[in-house]
């Protein structure tokens, strides 16, 4: 009995001591983004999202009297610079977690440094296969294309109950080819029969032959996987040969230029997305408003994912009650339904994101939620 009492006392003391050690006054979050060069537009967007997130977390007193502070460096979209910046964040700035880098290629070189040092990393734009397979300290909040692109199919199926589908894709591009494969699997899963599939090569400008072959099979819906270069002529020529059935586009069709240059031909097109300005998620609406107020422009998907990463880290800091890297990793793995602009957010067992993708349609010259 005495022993049990003793053990209980120790247990209580231990719990107390954990609670008694509060979060430090300043918790450093690191980030490596491509702020200069060809990919600067992504990196700068992400940084704006992260900065807004940190301001809001600090203002909300979510972490009590503890404040988040950001150490951010330009990784120049270069592997060696990425490695150098990661080392600096880990050894000099002694950050609790790192958000970034911007590009998957940089990530494959730099993230192993953090994994080895035991520092949690949250990728906000690292959609490549294998990112989270690098180790148990690697997380991401960006849905891969394989998840959000075919997300457009479910609502289309619900609305139009299609039985037959036809597909056109670019065969000379890895991205379009893999997107086509993703759609094929999603169609099969949705019980929609793929009755015809045609392809073209990069640089082609006339798609009427392929489109006519597809039309001859009388499909109920069309699926197009093109990059932005061919997306618009494909769409226009499809309308020309008389396609009126719903068209589901790949990620190349989620681009303002499709509306700008495609005009009426673009109306009614459906695409899947990880996030959109049109999102109906409440947290997204407040985020868009705050972002506009701070930066004077609309946020994009990258800003939303950067902002969300901060909210997720903050939640994990609060849940775990510790800024220690290993404790933060464990807390991150357990976060559940964090309220973010991406919807209610959790990580799956592979530390990949679980959040609802959205379907958009072009209506009145604007991307709107597909309903």
């Amino acid at each position, binding site marked *: 009995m005495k022993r049990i009492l003793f053990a209980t006392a120790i247990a209580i003391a231990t719990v107390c001591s954990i609670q008694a050690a509060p979060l430090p006054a300043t918790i450093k979050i690191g980030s490596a983004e491509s*702020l*200069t060069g060809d990919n*600067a537009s992504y990196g*700068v967007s992400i940084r704006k999202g992260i900065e807004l997130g940190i301001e809001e977390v600090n203002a909300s007193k979510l972490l009590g009297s503890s404040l988040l502070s950001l150490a*951010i*460096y*330009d990784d120049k*979209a*270069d*592997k*060696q*610079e990425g*490695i*150098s*910046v990661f*080392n*600096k964040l880990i*050894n*000099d700035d002694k950050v609790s977690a790192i958000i970034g880098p911007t590009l*998957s*290629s940089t990530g*494959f*070189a730099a993230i*192993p*440094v953090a994994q080895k040092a035991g520092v949690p990393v949250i990728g906000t734009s690292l959609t*490549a*296969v*294998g*990112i989270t*397979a*690098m180790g148990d300290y690697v997380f991401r909040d960006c849905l891969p294309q394989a998840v959000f692109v075919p997300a457009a199919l479910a609502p289309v199926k619900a609305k139009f109950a299609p039985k037959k589908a036809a597909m056109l894709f670019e065969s000379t591009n*890895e*991205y379009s080819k893999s997107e086509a494969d993703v759609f094929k699997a999603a169609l099969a899963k949705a019980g929609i029969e793929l009755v015809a599939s045609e392809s073209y090569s990069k640089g082609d400008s006339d798609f009427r032959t392929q489109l006519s072959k597809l039309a001859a099979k009388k499909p109920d819906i069309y699926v197009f996987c093109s990059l932005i270069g061919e997306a618009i002529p494909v769409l226009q020529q499809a309308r020309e040969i008389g396609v009126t059935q719903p068209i589901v586009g790949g990620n190349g069709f989620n681009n303002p230029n499709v509306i700008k240059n495609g005009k009426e031909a673009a109306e009614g097109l459906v695409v899947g997305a990880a996030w959109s300005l049109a999102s109906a998620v409440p947290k997204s609406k407040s985020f868009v408003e705050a972002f506009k107020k701070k930066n004077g422009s609309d946020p994009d998907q990258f800003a939303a994912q950067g902002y969300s990463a901060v909210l997720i880290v903050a939640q994990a800091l609060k849940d775990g009650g510790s800024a220690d890297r290993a404790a933060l990793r464990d807390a991150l793995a357990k976060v559940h339904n964090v309220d973010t602009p991406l919807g209610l957010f959790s990580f799956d067992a592979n530390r990949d994101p679980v959040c609802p993708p959205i379907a958009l349609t072009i209506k009145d010259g604007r991307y709107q939620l597909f309903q």
Partner: protein
Amino acid sequence: MKKSYASWIVAALIVAVDAFLCVKNPQDLDRLLINAILALSAFATLHARLLSLASAGFAAIGAYASAILAIKLGLPIWLSIPAAVLACGIVALIIGLPVLKLNDVYLAICTLGFGEIVRVSIILLPSLTGGSTGANLSTGFAYEAMKQTRTWELALALLALCYLFWATSRSKTGRALRAIRENPDAAATMGINVVVYKNGAFLASALIAGLAGAFYAHSVGSLDAGDFKFSRAVDILSYAVLGGSGAWFGPILGAGLLTALPILLRDGLRFLKDFSQLPNIVNGLALMLAIIFMPGGLAALFARRSSRASEARGEASTPGDGIEDAEEERVSGPMLAVEGLSRSFGGVAALCDVSFAIERGQVIGLIGPNGAGKTTLINTVSGIFPPSSGKIKWEGREIQGRAAHRIASGGIARSYQNIQLFGEMSVLENIVVGHHSRIHTSLAGSWLRLRSEKREERAARAEAMALIERLGLGDLADQEASKLSYGDQRRVEIARALALRPRLLLLDEPAAGMNEIETAALGDFILELKERGYTILVVEHHMDLIMKICDEIVVLNFGSKIAQGAPEEVSRNEAVLEAYLGRE
């Protein structure tokens, strides 16, 4: 003295900054070492006067080849890296021959195209390279299997390369490359096979770039084609340009500076978070200023230590004046016979059906008004360009159209009307270049620092020094050739031609720029050479000199021979007087 002081401070500063950064962040050391190796690759071509941007392309081949061999075939990296380097060498040999015919900016554009082809090929072979996704975990190149090099291995490789560059720079090969860098045409007429050396330099550059690329793959642990894009090629070139293409250690310092500067700026200017482009602008500005104010690069801060005249004097073990008596004739008949020689440039006939012969031991004067075709004749005989038609028979064998270096080593030396010395090399070194084809130690021998090389070099320097003293240039032996007076430069040119030990000497206006006393001394010297068995063809406008030294005179006008004969004979020739004085 002051100069070398400043240079050591600069070098020490760069080393100290790099050491500081690498201690703070050891993985930056890998990057520094790889960049230094890449800088050496750019140096190898730039030093041979090749403006090549191919290093990034070869680094890409090296990186992917080693990665694929190590991952897909499971080779250990001590096998995959040499194999990758070898692959780069084969590619360099194949593309080198056609590409290296181009010069300057044309070569730059062409090698840039090569880099693009490599980059796009990598993207278009996804099953092998991972395509546009890159060679990483997602395409089967696992990080742990890829990342295999240790920093000390890279350091060891750089040290080994430094040794090879150092040993090469002191060898016959190094001297030939410096000569080519200064003046490829003059180098060729000193018996240097410029094409072979340029291809060799390109090959070396490719091998080194391939090594750097393979190290990059196994140091970073993943790859994609973007790692070797245009901007990387420019970075590599700027290491060598900032460092200086004159000495091998310059580019290493250049790489050290250009690797450290962005890191310092990144950390130093981080408070300027809204101006993330600023470090790049400062970096670019620093590069601009450095190149404007140090056109020779960092290496130019260091005084180049070439072999001193005093040492060469001390080494003189063979008595003599450095001028060897000309060798005995090998075949009967005239030594040089020009038969129906013509050369036209576009529609202009610079030489028209010129024939004459030179017997052994003769001094022949070649005169004519400006534009008569005298220099064209010398250029044709010495192989600078081939004749349009006609024959040149050298000791009975036809040599028209032969490469300049072969004609030179065959026994015909020349001087130039417009002085073509190796301006940045010392007078002594200029002359030693003339010994090129007589120094037999191979490059490998130089790397092994064989005794035979030391012996040959010492003999060459001693002989060159004796020649310099004979021509009264002894005090100037250590001077840079370009710093000499015009008349002295002429004499150095003649000495350099004599260093080839030619049997026929072509002198193109040797007295131009000399005063009367110097001209008279030159005349005596030419007669002395004649006595020692040299055969000489001399182009001159100083008629006194021509009359004094020549056995026979050939007169050209508008590309055609209008007279030939003994000096007195020619001076009375009506056609000659007409050509010179415009008489009716």
